[in-house]
């Protein structure tokens, strides 16, 4: 009933015949991400539903159009979760969109990213073939890891049909410890935690306070609480959800929002604007009126990269430019999977 793979396959074959570029969409909740793409819309939303879920196997398989909320609800019933804590950015967010955009939330540095939890997938490639890669087991090294390659490709490598993901039990207990400090101090504290065997599973600095979430068994949380300085934050769950969904006051201002990726211990960068540090300092949100070239140069000099996450300027190139050799490899790789270049042209980079 909800298996629309044959219909999607026909749409791809038709597009191939007429060489019509396609714009793959889900619910549209991530349309603000990446670059705009032309093309005929192919909507994956009707292809939905959880195909298989056995909590004892720690694996869920669901079609791409399945609302993320539906998946999380099914997991929660069995006391499990998507450990990469994906942001939704809308109630209608789908699994496919989340993975195509490689979105992970506050737990990412401590548990792994969206792609880390991918075990296998089924896609439609640019020849209109339905292909299955990976599997439903934790360990699988047969063939190239095409499943994880799909994560963050913004639909440029195929129509994502379904994914099998590893899931984890929800922590038995969790507490968030908050302390007022400077950004530099927060960076020092958060990176120092990387070297400590405490069950930290989120850490951020909101411009004023450093918040550290400790999760695990009741005893582990109680014990670690005594080792990390600060006060217990009330309603911490709502705070982390607001951070994940970009609903904190920091994100309310208009203007360009940059996502700056650096090594976690990188000192505060000399760029004007306001900062919010997530992922223990490894993912930094910047609101700034500085010139994009200047921002890129500054972040690059620290070995990092920057993308334009939200912007009113549709023409701005959203992602960090790639070195020439690597870009050529992206082009040849895309044409090995999508030879007629029909999927999401330009969504990731111009000329890709």
């Amino acid at each position: 009933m909800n298996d629309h793979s044959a219909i999607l396959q026909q749409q791809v074959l038709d597009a191939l015949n007429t060489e019509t570029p396609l714009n793959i969409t889900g619910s549209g909740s991530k349309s603000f991400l990446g670059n705009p793409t032309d093309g005929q819309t192919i909507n994956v939303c009707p292809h939905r539903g959880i195909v298989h879920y056995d909590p004892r196997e720690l694996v869920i398989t669901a079609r791409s159009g399945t609302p993320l909320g539906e998946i999380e609800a099914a997991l929660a019933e069995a006391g499990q979760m998507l450990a990469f804590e994906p942001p939704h950015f809308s109630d209608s967010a789908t699994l496919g969109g989340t993975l195509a955009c490689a979105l992970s939330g506050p737990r990412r540095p401590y548990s792994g990213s969206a792609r880390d939890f991918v075990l296998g997938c089924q896609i439609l490639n640019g020849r209109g073939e339905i292909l299955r890669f990976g599997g439903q087991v934790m360990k699988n090294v047969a063939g190239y890891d095409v499943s994880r390659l799909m994560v963050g490709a913004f639909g440029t490598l195929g129509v994502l049909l379904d994914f099998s993901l590893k899931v984890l039990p929800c922590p038995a207990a969790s507490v968030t410890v908050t302390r007022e400090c400077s950004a530099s101090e927060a960076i020092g504290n958060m990176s120092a935690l990387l070297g400590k065997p405490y069950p930290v599973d989120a850490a951020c600095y909101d411009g004023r306070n450093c918040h550290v979430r400790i999760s695990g068994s009741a005893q582990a949380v109680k014990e670690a609480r005594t080792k990390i300085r600060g006060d217990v934050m009330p309603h911490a769950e709502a705070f982390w959800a607001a951070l994940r969904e970009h609903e904190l006051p920091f994100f309310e201002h208009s203007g360009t929002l940059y996502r700056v990726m650096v090594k976690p211990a990188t000192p505060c960068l000399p760029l004007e604007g306001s900062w919010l540090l997530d992922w223990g300092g490894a993912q930094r949100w910047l609101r700034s009126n500085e010139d994009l070239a200047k921002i890129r140069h500054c972040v690059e000099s620290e070995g990092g990269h920057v993308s334009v996450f939200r912007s009113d300027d549709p023409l701005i190139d959203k992602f960090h430019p790639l070195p020439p050799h690597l870009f050529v490899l992206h082009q040849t790789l895309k044409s090995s999977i999508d030879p007629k270049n029909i999927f999401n042209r330009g969504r990731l980079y111009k000329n890709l």
Partner: protein
Amino acid sequence: MPTHPKINDALIRSLRNILPAESVLTDTEELHPFEGDGLSVYRQLPLAVVLPETIEQVQSILRLCHQQRVPVVARGAGTGLSGGALPLAEGVLLSLAKFKQILNIDPVNAMATVQPGVRNLAISEAAAAYGLYYAPDPSSQIACTIGGNVAENSGGVHCLKYGLTVHNILMLKVVTMEGDLLTIGAETLDSPGYDLLALMTGSEGLLGVIVEVTVKLLAKPERAQVVLAAFDDVIKAGEAVSAIIAAGIIPAGLEMMDKLAIQAAEDFVHAGYPREAEAILLCELDGTNAEVSEHILTIRQILNNSGATEVRTAVDEAERQLFWKGRKSAFPAVGRISPDYYCIDGTIPRHQLPHVLRRIGEMSAEYGLPVANVFHAGDGNLHPLILFDANQPGELARTEEFSRHILQLCVEVGGTITGEHGVGIEKIDAMCFQFQSAELTQFHAVKAAFDEFGLLNPGKAVPTLHRCAEFGAMHVHNGQLSHPELERF
């Protein structure tokens, strides 16, 4: 390809222009140590072995081979178990043995940058001073190199909790067959563009030559403790595994051994295993002191409720090490009771374990070849060891056939033909069980995007459609043959 001796001479002269004379080996005697890897039934002398020590040399070698269309096989420590580093008679074997520098340990960012020939364990040893370690621990970790680990996406006994190599690396420097140096991934948690880091990991040396690896380091857990449980029935042990997972505990390691493996290991290292048990489980818990104590209580209760005949927590670190020593010595222990053994590496959904073990038992009787089972139970990775004698005519062939049937069974129950050892040359035919022609064709297209002429480790990892047709093991999907375009043999 330069099969003509004169062309070979020219190639070797060119290689000697790139490298010092002692780094280009061509005498049969010098080539012998490189004739195979951990899968010793396959052996082949290469045309030459080269031992570069700089990235520039690797680039020049690959540029030359690309220009001359000479195939290249990269090699780390040669501990691989699927023949991935098996040389080609007409090819160059590129050893990364001289790349053994730890370039940087960055404790504040919890990462390390190393050359590909650094041993897996050496990274953890170097990081230990900072209370950090590198998590993936393949059982060959004392010898295997990080470059090989990346090429194979190696696992280990702690995968369920800490992931495979792909989950624990950040950045690679890779030389393409054309000699270009690429940086893949970044020192940051993700990088712009496609996730080539994932694609490169486990690509078995077919997409590029890894010349530098940046790994993620983790804080060493405060405490690790292991519980041993004995069962009078393998199925009960399997159910206990599911019960542990269902209780919301992710053990650091969860290993199962069957009777033959238990007895072989016990006779070899005297680990204190119960010899009469049909199966044992080793369940390791790590974390903070309080967390481990709490989880051990829960685990002991689960194991008792699952019908364990005996549950023992290691009394001290020495006993914990001894319990593990038994498990880690299982392969050589089996080697003592049989002239040869053949190790299989399939993964299955855990709930299929009783069915799969029963079928393996039945097949063992049919083939007249005993099997010892060791099992990374937490992540469904089964290592049946077939006992055989290569000196008995036909026994190796029968063993290989038996092995393929086990892998076919793994695929039938929703698993895979290799969990961590790779496809290499060994499971090239078994790939035809798992993938249909469209997927295999796609793999070849991906390979061509990196290596147009197919010169890097050709003949490994991904079979040609022709080979699958000859092998006759393709899927028949919906009553349709996978390769209608191909002749049948």
